[in-house]
């Protein structure tokens, strides 16, 4: 009703049509994410060539070859099974980093904003310090220090993957922590929280019942974006030569393929495409959640 009264726009902003149906991209992104998750979990049980076996009779064959559907690398590794195997590692690393880092960040951020005072000052400072180092540089530094078992010998692959996940987790903590802190600040001053406090509800219950449900969507939105950035950082680390060794992830497939780019460009295109599509899908979901959130906010 009053919306007609407060029309403040002009012909300066013409043609606004309300779009209702769920966009096509939603299904596309959903399909891709589902496919990647499926391959990550069941990929090794699917029929197909071994990912770590070199086929000496078909080095560097182009995609759509009869026995290598996506071609092989110049070293004879099958691209399709490489990608399927890589999905497992890339997705696993990203999910662990974002879920663990997000959980830690959320706890710290919510506590910091809810209890305020000195804790908040210290935690905000800590977040700022961590965010002051570009995330790629931070994970580079962490890995370069932690991924060695003694002075000059790199640690085992398992340990390096662990270190990789650890460093990405550490990168995620302040990013999601700051979001959680901001959202909590906004919600903890709302009337229903004050009302609940005045009824003598414990802080823990208030956080669980009133704060977390409202903070969660914001975390979820940024969390999706974070999965995208973690995949990118993992790929970047691989290109810099300190990611997962031995072509086990999309990033390291791409890094290995860089040298052969003039002969078998699909070694670069395919993992790059897989990374890009996954990142696009994650960003898309993040954006979708954020938009839905904005709409809900504007209705309140």
């Amino acid at each position, binding site marked *: 009703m009053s919306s007609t009264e407060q029309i*403040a*726009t*002009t*012909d*300066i*902003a*013409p*043609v*606004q*049509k309300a*779009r209702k149906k769920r966009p096509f*991209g939603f299904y596309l992104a959903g399909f891709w994410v589902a496919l990647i998750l499926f391959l990550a979990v069941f990929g090794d049980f699917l029929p197909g060539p071994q990912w770590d076996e070199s086929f000496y009779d078909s080095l560097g064959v182009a995609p759509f070859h009869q026995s290598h559907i996506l071609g092989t690398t110049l070293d004879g590794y099958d691209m399709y099974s490489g990608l399927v195997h890589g999905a497992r590692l890339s997705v696993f690393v990203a999910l662990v980093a974002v879920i663990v880092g997000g959980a830690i960040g959320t706890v710290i951020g919510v506590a910091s904003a809810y209890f305020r005072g000195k804790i908040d000052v210290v935690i905000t*400072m800590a977040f*700022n*310090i961590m965010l*002051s*180092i*570009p995330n*790629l*540089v931070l994970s*580079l*530094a*962490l890995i*370069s*220090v*932690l991924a*060695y*078992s*003694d*002075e*000059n010998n790199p640690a085992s692959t398992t340990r390096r993957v662990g270190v990789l996940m650890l460093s990405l987790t550490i990168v995620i903590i302040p990013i999601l922590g700051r979001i959680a802190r901001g959202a909590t600040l906004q919600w903890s001053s709302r009337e229903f929280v004050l009302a609940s406090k005045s009824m003598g509800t414990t802080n823990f219950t208030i956080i669980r019942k009133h704060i977390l449900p409202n903070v969660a969507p914001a975390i979820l939105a940024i969390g999706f974006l974070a999965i*995208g950035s973690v995949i*990118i950082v993992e*790929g*970047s680390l691989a*290109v*810099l*030569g*300190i990611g997962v060794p031995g072509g086990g992830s999309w990033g390291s497939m*791409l890094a290995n393929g*860089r040298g052969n*780019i*003039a002969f078998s*460009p699909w070694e*670069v*295109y395919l993992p*790059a495409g897989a*990374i*890009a599509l996954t*990142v*696009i899908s994650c*960003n*898309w979901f993040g*954006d979708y959640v954020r938009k839905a959130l904005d709409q809900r906010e504007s209705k309140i």
Partner: protein
Amino acid sequence: METIRMIFKRIVLLSTVVVIATFLLSLLMRLLPGDPAAVLVPNAPEELRALIREETGLSKGIFGYYWQWLSGMLQGDFGKYYLNGGYRPVSEVLKKCLPPSLFLILYAQIVALALSIPLGLISAYKENSRFDRITSSVLFTAVSIPAFASGIILSLIFAVQLGWVDPIGYESPFGNPVEHFKLMILPVTSLAIGLTSSYTRLLRTDVIATLKEDYVTMAASKGISNKRVLWKHVFRPSSTTLLTSAALNMGGLIGGTIIVEIIFVIPGIGYEIAYSIGARQIVAMQTLIALVSFAYVFFNSTVDLITNITDPRTRERRV
């Protein structure tokens, strides 16, 4: 008076962040398993290692080491690369690697702003039009393509296959300007893709909000052209977030250029960081990372301060 107090507070905060961050970096270096001197000079005799331990302060425990590093930094002694029995001062390396990085960042920023300002304004003005939807989806896709992928693919297409430019290398703009710009095209493009996307989206959101303001209707009711309304009345108040984030990126980009510098072999600061990490030159690495994070924090607070002082709206809120 209030402004001075605010500046002072910022300086204190900034120094605290930088001191703690660099201290943590030192601590991290000490987490290395084994003898750090053995990491720095793997095959050197014990006497040389002892000398290096003494010189860097590694023999003095974590606080002693940090203090020696910090006071060295403040006096302009940025530490050394220890290589093949000899050494190179980091400050010398820095002198060479800063200009390429700064040019790269500067060009990428100029290109990104030059593209995103008109794109953001027009797509906000025509919100939900076909132009807006196409721009949005193209940019959305572009921002999701990692710089290493776009860099490699760009160099594959334009350098390797078409042969228009050299795939790698760097030339000083003062020695050979034509070659300088030619070599910069691909790296700048792959950096600018992501920047353009995020700037356009920021500006679009803000312009859409500004278009709903009364003063825009008011300006339109004066009978001036839509173009004038957009540029004179809408752009300025909508540009704060854009300019802030562009300025903030200056700091972040110094570190963020690593990948692009590696792919296109540009001897910039990101390249040097990656090199020092690869060669396990922990002292040099600590210095370079510290400088990058200092630049980031410095830009961050300066921009914040400037917007606080210059934007009449934030002044209004304070009053």
